[in-house]
């Protein structure tokens, strides 16, 4: 029996903030973002992020959510009982039985981005597993407008995974490799991931290198989301969230096409931008808990 390498598999991870002692906190809340590809949980102690877990989404949302929150609290001494309010977000948000409220990932990403990058953020591009969203927000992280890509997975994380498998390149190396080309090739089809894959196979047969094909796909992804940003009206204080925000091949091409740089992560920032939705959920959870306490 042979073992097939799954090049699309990215590494699951977790993080605990060593500077935060949850035992001293008056409120512990969490946000769980069950996306189509990854499930993220962020745990907040008062106003600080205590821990997070980043896991692959399984076949059902409740298990994926539990998996993510368990991974986040692993080793912290926290138990689920200690978490006073949970907000569910993402594609599977309505199927998280232990969440007190479901809020859309659009609102959560805006809120999370505001927390990570500060009140300067006005435009957020969330490049997720199966869709992309261009979000406008105000200085408090409140959504003022949004647009989503249409129904195809081309230009999303899932599309990138398909290409990683096709070219047998680990997903984490796709971005770097796509930049190792002498000349930028024209982009492949961005209408449909299936067409893009067929085109990629054709290009390989024509003798293109893997790097060239990856460059053509990263370029297509960047171009597709530029259109989305142009439609919503771009403001230069923009940031990227979601898994694709970690792909330098897409991000650098996107910045080049837009003619502006994304706001960099703050120097002391330890949070993965893929966690923005979960962080936003945890912030909403904190506010909702405070509101319910006030009511009594």
């Amino acid at each position, binding site marked *: 029996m042979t073992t097939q390498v799954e090049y699309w598999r990215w590494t699951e991870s977790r993080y605990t903030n060593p500077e935060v002692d949850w035992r001293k906190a008056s409120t512990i809340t969490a946000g769980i973002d069950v996306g189509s590809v990854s499930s993220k949980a962020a745990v907040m102690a008062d106003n600080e992020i205590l821990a997070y877990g980043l896991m692959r989404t399984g076949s059902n949302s409740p298990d994926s959510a539990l998996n993510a929150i368990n991974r986040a609290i692993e080793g912290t001494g926290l138990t689920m009982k200690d978490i006073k309010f949970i907000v569910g977000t993402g594609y599977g948000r309505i199927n998280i039985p232990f969440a007190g409220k479901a809020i859309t990932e659009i*609102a959560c990403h805006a809120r999370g981005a505001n927390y990570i990058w500060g009140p300067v953020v006005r435009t957020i591009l969330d490049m997720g597993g199966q869709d992309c969203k261009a979000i406008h927000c105000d200085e408090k992280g409140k959504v003022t*407008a949004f647009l989503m890509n249409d129904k195809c997975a081309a230009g999303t994380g899932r599309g990138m995974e398909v290409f990683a498998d096709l070219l047998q390149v680990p997903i984490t190396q796709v971005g770097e490799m796509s930049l190792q080309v002498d000349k930028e090739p024209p982009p492949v089809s961005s209408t449909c991931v299936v067409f893009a894959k067929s085109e990629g196979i054709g290009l390989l047969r024509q003798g293109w290198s893997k790097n060239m094909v990856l460059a053509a796909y990263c370029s297509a992804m960047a171009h597709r989301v530029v259109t989305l940003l142009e439609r919503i009206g771009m403001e230069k204080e923009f940031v990227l969230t979601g898994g694709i925000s970690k792909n330098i091949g897409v991000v650098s091409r996107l910045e080049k096409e837009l003619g502006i740089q994304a706001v960099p992560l703050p120097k002391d920032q330890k949070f993965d931008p893929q966690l923005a939705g979960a962080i936003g959920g945890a912030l909403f959870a904190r506010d909702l808990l405070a509101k319910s306490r006030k009511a009594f």
Partner: protein
Amino acid sequence: MVTSIKKYQTRPLDSFKKAVELRKEYYQNVREAKQQGKLLITGGADSMVALPAGLGDYVFFEGEPYGATISMDPEFSGKCVEAAEAKNFARDMCAYMRNYWGSMFLNKYYFGGEFPKPDFVMQLGFCDTHAKWMQQVGEYMNAPYFGIDMPVGTPGRNVEAKVKYLTSQMNDAIEWMQKVTGRKYDDDKLREAVRNECKSSTLWSEIVCYNKAIPAPLEQRLIFTLFIICILRRYERKSVEFYETLRDEVKQRVADGIAAVATERCRLMDDSQPPWYFLQLYKYMEKYGVSVVGSHYSFFLGGSLEEMPDGSLGAPKTPDEMGMPMKTREDILRAYALWYIKKPIISQMFALPHFKSETMLRLVKEWKVNGVIFHLNRGCEGTAMGQMENRLALTKAGIPVMTYEGNMADRREFDEAQTLRRIDAFMESLGLSKLES
């Protein structure tokens, strides 16, 4: 922007039943036209449906409402669009057309029996797809076809030339209809049908103006049920009587403060035809306390609005009310031509998006709308044209806008979960949460 939660009084609309009954009767009339000794004519919903009236009793079988009706039945609609595609008609063509054609190719009328064979086909070419749609019907059904070309261009410009162009074609159509049916043409019957059509239209316009009231007496699902008579039967006296009764009822609802949505706390408009097979969309928004108070499409498909002396939008006058002569055939045709040239659905939606943007901004203001939802409709080239330009104009004016992709009559292109997800996000951005689960 969003007011505090308040529950308005609500009650069912008496005229609703009558609208359903009239629609049902219409489709029976289509099926039984021949037995009733009536002519059966088919063509687009925006054809000059009063024109054949001079020939005597007739039923005008309109393509688009029939295509929309079919789309509400997933099984039959699936068979119809596949039957059209099997004849090599592309999937991205008008979805109404593919449903209608499929029904014709399968020789199955949705309301029972065989697909009704028309005596002739008459189409106003305001939408190029539709001109070819009906040409195909004529060829397939072996029925004579007459196409009237609709002049386009900037509203208010070259009006006389446009009138001349249309009336000359209408005169040709009358000659042609007499020839193909062997019937003599009666101008008195034409006059009556034109008067009915214009009156039905102005009554509908008057009714939608009552929806400026807070709370709105009607909401979009209800509007769709009510406006269809003004599409299907607007040349009949029954249509005028129906809208007179409805107008009085809606007026009374406003006086009594009766709401269509008891929890109305946010008023939205939408754009383009809805996904007809998923009108639950509006019910879903009601959970947030949203009343969709209308749209450019639902106001203007059957009606028209023009500026009143006080600067607000109101119902236009009929040719008789404007004092236009209606004595001779030329008088009637001139009045009828002018009526069509001014129709916003033709002059704005299908031709000049920036005019539509201006109208939408006025509708938003006068109907006190908090946001607009665009159905980016892949099923209709005409209504989809310029939608992004309209969206941009509203956004620039600071009006919250949401878009979702779909198809008015081909559910294969609609994603229910994704659409509801977008609505949830839009509601959140408007500061609304569900009042019920």
